[in-house]
């Protein structure tokens, strides 16, 4: 069994529990053990880099140092925002002499820069697809709008995705799972991210364009790989619909939930009951054939 370092981040312990559940479910199918970093801390998110540039490197650096101590050279970071902060911290430590000396003093730990954060999409491509492609028995007979948002494709120096303006990584995964990935215009637009609480009105406006474009082009669901994108598209739907003439009910699902369904895992074991916008109609549309995990 392959073992890989796992940094769930705060969201996967709270608002994005279904992401954690479904990720672990597909990892079991791929025979990968996700080993949670010991006593990890929050990456600092937007708050740290908006207010204090040192904190913005030091907080994620402590997690990188913990992963090194545990002997991992790769850390799976499923949250795109956490990934961005951890990868940026590693980048700063490697490229900036100032941080190379300062950070170990701040975190009181040695850091060599040998533990590399990887996104959920890279994880799926590198560790999961080969192992599960023969087990994707429940072909997903539906249309999907693959939504990347910001931090999986940008900034360039942290992203592993090619074709930043029109990435196709998730589309290929959807295709393998038997689904149809639609062409649409908002796949790399921003959901409003960290303004969710303070300027919910802005999040409503930005996400309205996203859900409206996806459903008007015939998608049955929006596929995401970031808990910030998901919570804005899902939990903020009433605010979103204030900007639209009809009640938009297109569900937002995680790429890990999509793979879970294709593997025939029961929807509740993938956390579909935790969504605010129900995915029931969409799931009923799929031919079901569930297996025990």
């Amino acid at each position, binding site marked *: 069994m392959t073992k890989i370092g796992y940094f769930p981040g*705060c969201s996967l*312990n*709270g*608002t994005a*529990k279904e992401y954690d559940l479904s990720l672990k479910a597909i990892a079991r199918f791929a025979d990968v053990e996700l080993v949670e970093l010991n*006593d*990890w*801390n*929050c990456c*600092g*998110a*937007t*708050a*740290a*880099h*908006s*207010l*204090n*540039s*040192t*904190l*913005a490197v*030091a*907080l994620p650096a*402590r997690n990188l140092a913990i992963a090194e101590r545990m002997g991992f050279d790769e850390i799976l970071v499923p949250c795109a925002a956490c990934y961005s902060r951890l990868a940026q911290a590693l980048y700063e430590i490697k490229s900036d002499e100032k941080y190379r000396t300062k950070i170990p*003093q*701040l*975190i*009181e730990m040695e850091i060599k820069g040998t533990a590399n954060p990887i996104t959920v999409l890279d994880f799926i491509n590198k560790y999961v697809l080969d192992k599960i492609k023969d087990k994707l028995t429940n072909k997903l007979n539906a249309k999907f709008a693959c939504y990347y948002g*910001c*931090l999986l*494709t*940008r*900034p*360039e120096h942290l992203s592993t995705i090619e074709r*930043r303006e029109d990435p196709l990584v998730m589309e290929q995964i959807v295709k393998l799972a038997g689904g149809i990935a639609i062409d649409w215009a908002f796949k*790399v*637009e*921003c959901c*409003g*991210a*960290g*303004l969710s*609480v*303070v*300027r*919910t009105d*802005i999040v409503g406006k*930005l996400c309205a364009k996203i859900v409206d474009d996806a459903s008007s082009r015939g998608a049955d669901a929006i596929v995401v790989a970031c808990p910030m994108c998901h919570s804005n598209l899902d*939990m903020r739907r009433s605010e979103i619909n204030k900007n639209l003439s009809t009640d938009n009910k297109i569900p937002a699902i995680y790429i890990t939930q999509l793979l879970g369904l294709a593997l025939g895992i029961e929807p509740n074991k993938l956390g579909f*009951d*935790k969504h*605010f916008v129900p995915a029931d109609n969409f799931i009923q549309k799929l031919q079901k054939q569930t297996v025990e995990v």
Partner: protein
Amino acid sequence: METKSKIEPLAQPLKEKILNEINEQVMKCYQCGKCAAGCPLSGEMDYTPNQILRLLQIGEPTCDDEVLRSYGIWLCLTCDTCHSRCPQEVDFPHIMDFLRSEAIKRKKVHPKAKEIIAFHRSFLESIEKTGRLSEVGLIASYKLKTFNLLQDVDLAPKMFAKGKLEIFPHRIKGRQAIARIFEKAMKEAHND
């Protein structure tokens, strides 16, 4: 001459500080406007990204002041669309981070940005105390700071019912280490 001693030394233009401290060149911008066209929040901002860059390029104290007091610098989502499309590779989000901390240092924060800062501070307080983000703690602290007591009250029970809200925060073992990271980082920002 007597008058000379009364003239205040000119403050260093922000564009020079930006070059010296974060190594970004605002002078590279030639105003193509791709940043403003792609920015999801141009329409909400008082100055669009290219306008901020133009004000910085001029380098006059009044222009720098206008930038630091703008609301737009607080709305920036760091989505990086501007940076990724910039033909001159100006890392505008990096400049925005610098401008935000500079606005706080010089006490020139736009009045409407106080809520955004209160949110960031509540967020950091949660990490400083527990090592992780406690959503309940964050919202409670933010509400107390801004008196937006009724905001999102409809969301909490639903989140709780779906098992998405932890009432008691998880406190990591390394809380002391986290507190020391905060102490040192804050001291450093203060001494700048």
